[in-house]
């Protein structure tokens, strides 16, 4: 099942949903339409807040589009120190000189608190990467020997 939404498409669809709200189909059971019930309205608000609060990690991902991966994700927690004066660098030796196909940088509540408590002396982050595949002159690893 293909499930991907671009930010600009999401904005367009939010607008369409607002116009359709008055004619939304009812649920299959005998229960009243969801949007007309006060309790369920409160639950929807709770749902939105929980979606923001419950996820444990902040992530940012560098992902060139349509890039096949050669490896499973590998990760390291790195510890930049002394307000950035000491800067960790990960030598990803498993990539066979191919470079990476994807990098994800994440932090979490514990890392944020550690940064605060140490006044920025250290500010750990987790770095996860996947390696790129071997390629040929045309892009893919294509041959003509058989």
């Amino acid at each position, binding site marked *: *099942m*293909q*499930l*991907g*939404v*671009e*930010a600009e498409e*999401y904005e367009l*669809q939010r607008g369409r*949903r607002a116009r*359709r709200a008055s004619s*939304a*189909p*009812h*649920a*299959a*059971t005998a229960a009243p339409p*969801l949007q007309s019930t006060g309790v*369920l309205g409160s*639950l*929807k608000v*709770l*749902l939105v807040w*929980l*979606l923001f609060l*419950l*996820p*444990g*990690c902040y*992530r940012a991902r560098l992902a060139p*589009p*349509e890039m*096949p*991966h*050669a*490896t*499973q*994700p590998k990760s390291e927690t790195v510890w930049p120190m002394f307000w950035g004066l000491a800067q960790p660098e990960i030598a990803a030796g*498993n990539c*066979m*000189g191919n470079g990476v196909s994807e990098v994800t940088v994440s932090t979490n509540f514990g890392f944020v608190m550690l940064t605060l408590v140490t006044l920025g002396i250290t500010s750990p982050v987790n770095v996860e990467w996947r390696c790129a*595949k*071997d390629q040929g002159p*045309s*892009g*893919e*690893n*294509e*041959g*003509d*020997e*058989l």
Partner: protein
Amino acid sequence: MPEPLIVFESNVRFVNWHRNVQVEVARLYDAWNRWSDRSRPTTRRWEPGLRALSRIVQHAEADGKRVRALGGAWSLSEAAVTRDYMVNTKPLNYVDVGLKPENVDPAYAGNPEYLVFTQCGTSVLELNRILERRGLALPTSGASNGQTFCGAFSTGTHGAANMVGSMQDYVAGLHVVGEGGRDYWVEPASRPVVSRKFCETLGTELRRDDRLFNALLVSFGSFGLIHAALFMAVPIYLLERHVRPYSYDRVRPSLSTLDVSGLDLPDGRGLPFHYEVVLNPYARRDRQGAYVRFMYQRPYSALPAAPTTTDTRVIMRPSDDVLSVIGAIGDVAPALLPYAVEELLEREFEPQDGELGTPAQAFGSTTLRGSVVSTELGVPLLHAENAVEAVLAVANDFPFAGLAAVRYVRASAALLAFTHHEPFTCTIELPAAGSQRALEAYDRIWNELERRNVPYTLHWGQILKNDPAHFRRAYGTRLDAWLAARRAFLTPAGRRTFSNDLLERAGLAS
């Protein structure tokens, strides 16, 4: 001959793409087409990868360990998993389009230029690109392109091209590394494709055996490590894509008959090339809640090139954790789930009317990540409506954060294909946000099908029943033939080496 590069990491936590399978693995190997000095050969580029697979099998046997090949890690089941040695095959991506005449058996009646040799790690994405440049295409594929081709057909993955069949149905031959690290080329005796010269070039032993081939096709690595496959591509074509909303009552007559005359489709009464019905289980039957996604196959003509840009785009996406959160919230507040499913379907199934694209454009990358579960039923066509009613009955009694996607696939000859029901298998996929509630819903659905006497199979790459009796009922004599083929190909020690927990739970490991 130089030594192949062998690299592995010990005591690794393996997590699949959909984050519902997590296992501690004793060794995770990466198999590359590299020699031990990390160089790549300029000819026979597949050779180091093949030798690496052979050597890894020997390692496993020497250490008394089981070994399993890992492709895209797309499976939602434990088909690719063992706690012993796993081999990441994604780097093995050599592809050769069109066989030379001397490599084709004289009896082969097809066009050798359409035969494609692909190593096991080549993804569907890579194949789509290569084939499009050559004016070719895959006859069918799954909904997205992140799987390896070999991993996809090894579990019986299919699309909705109802007259084409599943991905394994256009595979013509397989190169497998078995016991002792010895390798074999396996193809049907009734449909020989390659010549002895081809096998000499690969340095492999030829085995022509219909039963072995049909057993090996959908075996999720249980006969050895598949090094490569040979498949039949087709001339490139376009797909004219449509998405239309209907009420469930309006699509219901088509479920067990494939009679689409009541849907007023553009090409009239004929069944489209691709026909799929996605259902909101919670919509009222007489209101919009069935989204019919259908495609017509059209002759290829060059399309305007998509605009390319070197600009950097920053896109805000749902977090990797959103699906887990939705699943968790659904566990405690199931009354919210129908609302969430309706929102999802309205966003994902905007009406579409005749947009043209190549197969690669139609079935592209999955961008949403996170914890997903899914099971997929395969039922005979005549039982399709009853099976869908069973799903809807369970979902309305026990809501879960999922939906139902109904497709149709021509019956497969592969012994353990879950799409083996003649003449068509109706597949009903039930993807959901990962949660205990969704897993319980699947149990209830399976029980309801059995209560209604609906025979069903399950996709090997999705959530399965832990019940050997189910697999015996689902496959009957096909199961016996598969077991016999495996016993003939592997010794007891070999069967153990290429088994895993899933095989044991299914009663297939002996």
